[in-house]
């Protein structure tokens, strides 16, 4: 369409140039334009956290982010976490602790956890709960999510600031 704008964004380490509707959210762009459906749309208004991705290393709600604002940025989605088929320590901790049931919130939980640990906000269970509280899990696998973040944080110790 004529009113689309060109956006250059590095997604999971790959430079992508796409024409996007300026009203399109990053969630929609990732899912419908780039086929990265790991990022979930649970509410589309910043309430549930299922759409959490990293933009320049910081966690953002991609449903509350216009794709055009990601121009020139580095975006990491759940698909970009594992390298060479090996799970990221956070993914592995979620798997080993059974930190999900239906799994719909899991990509957002995992991305939020990666950032939570990197921010240095995973030093106690209380702190993990506070800093993971933007990600809803209706199956309420919360005890296992806390355990998984703590386990991954211990493993990623060096990443915490």
């Amino acid at each position, binding site marked *: 369409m004529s009113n689309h704008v060109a956006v250059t964004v590095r997604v999971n380490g790959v430079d992508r140039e796409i024409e996007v509707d300026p009203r399109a959210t990053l969630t929609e762009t990732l*899912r419908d334009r780039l*086929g*990265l*459906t*790991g*990022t*979930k*749309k*649970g*509410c*589309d*208004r910043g*309430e*549930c956290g*299922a759409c959490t991705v990293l933009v320049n290393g910081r966690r953002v709600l991609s449903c509350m982010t216009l794709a055009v604002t990601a121009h020139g940025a580095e975006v990491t*989605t*759940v*698909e970009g*976490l*594992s390298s060479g088929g090996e*799970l990221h320590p956070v*993914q*592995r901790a*979620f*798997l*080993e602790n*059974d930190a*999900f*049931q*239906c*799994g*719909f*919130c*899991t*990509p957002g939980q*995992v991305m939020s956890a990666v950032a939570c640990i990197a921010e240095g906000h995973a030093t106690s269970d*209380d702190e993990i*709960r*506070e800093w*993971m*509280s933007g*990600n*809803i*899990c*209706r*199956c*309420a*696998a*919360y*005890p*296992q*999510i*806390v355990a998984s973040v703590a386990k991954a944080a211990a493993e990623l110790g060096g990443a915490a600031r």
Partner: protein
Amino acid sequence: MSTATRETVAGRVGDSAVRPDAALKVRGEFAYSSDLFADDMLWGATLRSPHPHARIRSIDVTAALTLPGVYAALTHADVPGENRYGLDHRDQPVLAEDVVRYQGEPVAVVAADHPETARRALDRIAVDYQVLDPVVDAELAMAEGAPVLHPECPGGNVLRHVRIRRGDPEATAEVVVTGEYRVGMQDQAFLGPESGLAVPAEDGGVDLHVATQWLHVDQSQVAHALGLPPEKVRLTLAGVGGAFGAREDLSMQVHACLLALRTRRPVKMVYGREESFFGHVHRHPALLRYEHGADRHGRLVSVRAEIVLDGGAYASSTPAVVANAATLGIGPYQVPNVRMDCWGVYTNNPPCGAMRGFGAVQACFAYESQMDKLAERLGMDPVELRIRNAMREGSTMPTGQVVDSAAPVAELLRRVRDKPLPPPADPTDPRDLPGGVANTTRGDGVVRGVGYGVGIKNVAFSEGFDDYSTARVRLEVLGGEPVVSVHTAAVEVGQGLVTVQQQIARTELGIARVTVLPADTGVGSAGSSSASRQSYVTGGAVKAACERVRDTLCALAATRLGREVGLVDGKLVTADGAVAASIADVLGDEVIERTVEWRHRPTFPLDPLTGQGNAHTQYAFAAHRAVVDVDVELGLVKVVELACAQDVGRAINPQAVLGQIHGGSAQGLGLAVMEEIQVVDGTVRNPSFTDYLIPTIVDMPPMVVDVLELADPHAPYGLRGVGEPPTISSTPAIVAAIRAATGRALTRVPVRPDDIALAGSASRPVPSRPEVPCD
């Protein structure tokens, strides 16, 4: 060969096996129904009624069709089969005809090249409504002269009335307590919204990929509405982002198929969050009036109860919910004299149907509130009172049914009572206090309370329903190794059913490599993933099919080896324990495949006058202790800890059992203090997660869980359904704890800050306070 080569495979029944879909889920590669995509697909969207009750004078889709990019705009006139569906009664139109009966009822659907085009097309559909007064009060709806919402319903607006009469319904007692309780409308609020992809097929049929709870009941309803034979409507399960009962009824299934058949292109429909609140049924709001009579020692003499469940605009599963509330409505107690009347009623409120706990939840809040009230009247400890009246194996239900397997109600209560209590809150850490980091208190005005609840739930379908599941198990040798595949139509909603199927096949056949095939209608029905029934019923079917495969394999081996052998740990073994052959040796290129339809013990209808009958096949029990801190000035509640004890018969997957207990308890917490769809004059006021609050990781308290495994001899592996019981008893336990902290009567859930903090709602003096030290 020697016995030394035998080894037991991992991931059997009783192990905390990892979910086979776990890696896909943590990688974001698991395909949920909203993730599906097809070349050339269109996007469907639904026009819904803004009115809870209105007559439709006309619908005009012309302007929608002139919008570029719009390929179809359909109304009831375009429904080729019967424009009716429903789980129990076919009373719900696929698209409204002359009347809309609830806000959000689908009126028209469109297909367009982009979701935004579809949304704009909906705006161009002109519907001329004559607005009618909505019937919004269930009790008034039952009254003489109320507008009749479904003229074909023989009971007027009463969809079902279950009467139970046991003993002397007029029995008198020394101590009598009465109470009136209300339960608000709870939403399942699964995170993955209603969605699916319909693909038109060459044979004039349609392939539907959808998130549901019961593929075959969808298939029959969709085929009926499309006017197609069932074999031309093929369903495949797409990834399900939670269910909790809300996917037992149809949502977008028929609509997407109609649009795909009309446009001859694949059509995807995905509801948004707001639409999802209108797109599925909810938990029935309830009005419950109870009178408990006991002797002075606290032994229950009688319970008399009247329960009114607001079914909303369409029947959904209301008749079964009514039966549950009635038959389970006095709780897990022995009561000689019972008079119970329970009604399910049509109104113009949102339709209500299945949600985890299904009728047992509403009743439990009321009967447990009554038990606390009775204990207070008698000056007894509330746990002692419950234990004194607890049912046990051999007890008789008010329906006359004898409970013929473990019913450790007293033991569950003792276990939660005897857990050490958590330490007092740290008033210097706001995260420990009600209000959290909002810093609303430094411990002043905070009072701790402890409360208890115990509940009962039936497992599987009841009242004579032909409740079965079908499993097809195939054994073959691939690359020199035996491989098993299990094919059922049973729906994985996150509860871990695919894991359970794998574990059962590994246990029965001793083979490590077990693949659970995608669930679809290419195999017989598995029944619903609801009523805590799938481990029992589909588990039973998979076990039985594996046994048939094993028998066939052993017979084949006996023929080939010239002696009798059995299958032990995946090897063919003679009576003396020696390995005679491997499966690969015996089977070669042959394939063994067996399909079994498996049923639990039959159940029977309830007598319409007395409610007597063996209506249920299995009962399940859980108990909770809740510890809360309440800011009695602001009315804020922090649930400090939940202890739960539950009998699961046999923990097929202990880790998954724990997850179910956490999840159910949290949803009960939500009903206790957070969750309610607020309906005013038939209109939903809070269809978002900003205004409908569900528990977050901060709201979820630490849990102490005891799992009992008292085998039910009638069930596969002795298992007892797990998913629902923890949802049932956590709500009354939390409310009892808030009552203990505040002295408020709290007869309605969810409890709101106003109910605690406003002086007008006090019924008893507030106890001494504060117990938490102030700084």
